[in-house]
């Protein structure tokens, strides 16, 4: 391995490197689990401190991502118990948070923001355990075996949770694409969005 090359997958990673490599993933994952605002930063710190206290990530069947996802689930559960109040998704917060890498074109930005808002609404409708598997498999591209090892559950449970999460996702998307009268809702096209953007005050 050359000095400039990234760490090999099998090599153990020290806590700070783990933080730098995966803090963004953990922040996004926590957000998708329903953590909001300033709580995200505290929860990210808690996740990595927990990892540090447990001796850090050790290479194995679980990838660093699924290992941290399990800790994020634990931290989120613990924080929700402590807070004893639900962190309902604030639509304004959601809109403001979709700023990861905003596209230069305002129309594309609006499309991406709308899609992210609807995706988060679909995720919020899922059970936490199902949501975690769905996010790791569908959005993060993790293998089922790695998810099973990271979350410390059998692979069959990963399949069943993914199945349940997909069903909830489909139902939510189908509901969202129909109007109040049951007729299919016309999707927003770029030309509609350009009109909307043009109407917005500078």
């Amino acid at each position, binding site marked *: 391995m050359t000095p400039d090359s990234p760490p090999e997958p099998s090599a153990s990673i020290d806590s700070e490197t783990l933080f730098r490599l995966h*803090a963004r993933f953990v922040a996004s994952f926590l957000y998708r689990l329903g953590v909001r605002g300033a709580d995200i*930063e505290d929860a990210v710190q808690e996740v990595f401190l927990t990892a*540090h206290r447990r001796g850090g990530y050790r290479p194995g069947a679980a990838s660093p991502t699924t290992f941290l996802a399990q800790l994020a689930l634990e931290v989120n559960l613990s924080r929700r118990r*402590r807070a004893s109040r639900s962190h309902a998704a604030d639509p304004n917060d959601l809109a403001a948070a979709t700023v*990861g890498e905003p596209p230069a074109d305002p129309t594309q930005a609006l499309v991406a923001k709308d*899609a992210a808002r609807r995706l988060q609404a679909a995720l919020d409708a899922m059970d936490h355990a199902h949501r975690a598997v769905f996010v790791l498999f*569908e959005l993060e591209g993790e293998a089922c075996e790695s998810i099973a090892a990271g979350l410390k559950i059998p692979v*069959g449970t990963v399949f069943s949770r993914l199945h349940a999460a997909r069903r909830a996702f489909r139902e939510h998307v189908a509901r969202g694409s129909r109007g109040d009268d049951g007729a299919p809702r016309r999707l927003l096209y770029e030309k509609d969005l350009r009109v909307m953007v043009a109407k917005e005050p500078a």
Partner: protein
Amino acid sequence: MRPAPVRLLDNHDAPAAERTLLEAGRSHAPVAYDVEAGAARFRVAVAGLAAAGAATVAHAAAKGSGVGGKTLISKLLAKVLLSVAVGTTFVGVGMVAGVMMARHSTQGPAAAVNARPSIPPTRTETRVAPSEAPAPPVAPSASAPVPEPAIAGPSLSPLPGVAAIKPHAHRTLRASPASAEQESRSVPDTAAVAEPEVVANLPASEPTATAKTTPEPPRADAPSEPQPSDSARPLGELQGIAIARDLVARDPSASLAVLDRLRREHPNGYFVEEREALTVLALAGDGQQAAARQRASAFLHVFPNGPFSEQVREILTRR
């Protein structure tokens, strides 16, 4: 064995609406996370954990090694060190008391009123106050060793602002204007002597040092000249924490003022845990035991196993 499911994004039979949402979720992070700031806080927390762990190990070692003559020797050594420390403290207190008495006799009641060091609410009040009593002679305690802050956390000294604290304060204290009139303009009262430790971290473009070290001819309109208020300038959170940490042991009330300001300017900052822990320690140091205990309970409720929890817990058990 059951085959692995195909991802919806890879499944071209999946509805377009589903794929659109998933593509958006993959290509855009839902939150913008500042990795550098987070890593800095994480480093501080890990160092705090290491310090707390070392203290625990040392404590356990001290408890475990109480066998035979070693214990007796260590106890004797501790007693000798304690008596030396107590003696030094008495001598120091005597010197400070002597200087205070001398100051009182030379300055009259006006200085006595301002004798308690506190952070004035604005810089304007500190700098401008033109017709106060002359500045007190510099107390030797200004160069006395400063006790370390109570938090056994990580060292924050590499911060540029922190390095400037003590030299700036000493420069202000040692400023020796040519006449008493100039002195009264540059260093108006004892409250102003305490203040520079807080303003030391403000931008270097501030004319603080030159105003205090270079005598200028008195101007008639100086008192009415508007000065930017200290509270109007945002204080960097990490700098503020470092200042509060530095002040917590030797001037808890000043530390509390800095922490209050941090609370106003960074209500959802990265260093909430550090800020609240320092607040508990400063309240305890300031003699506000009831408030310190109340705050400590709240802190431990939120951070039961944090790097500062042991120190805060100690406040609760203190009589």
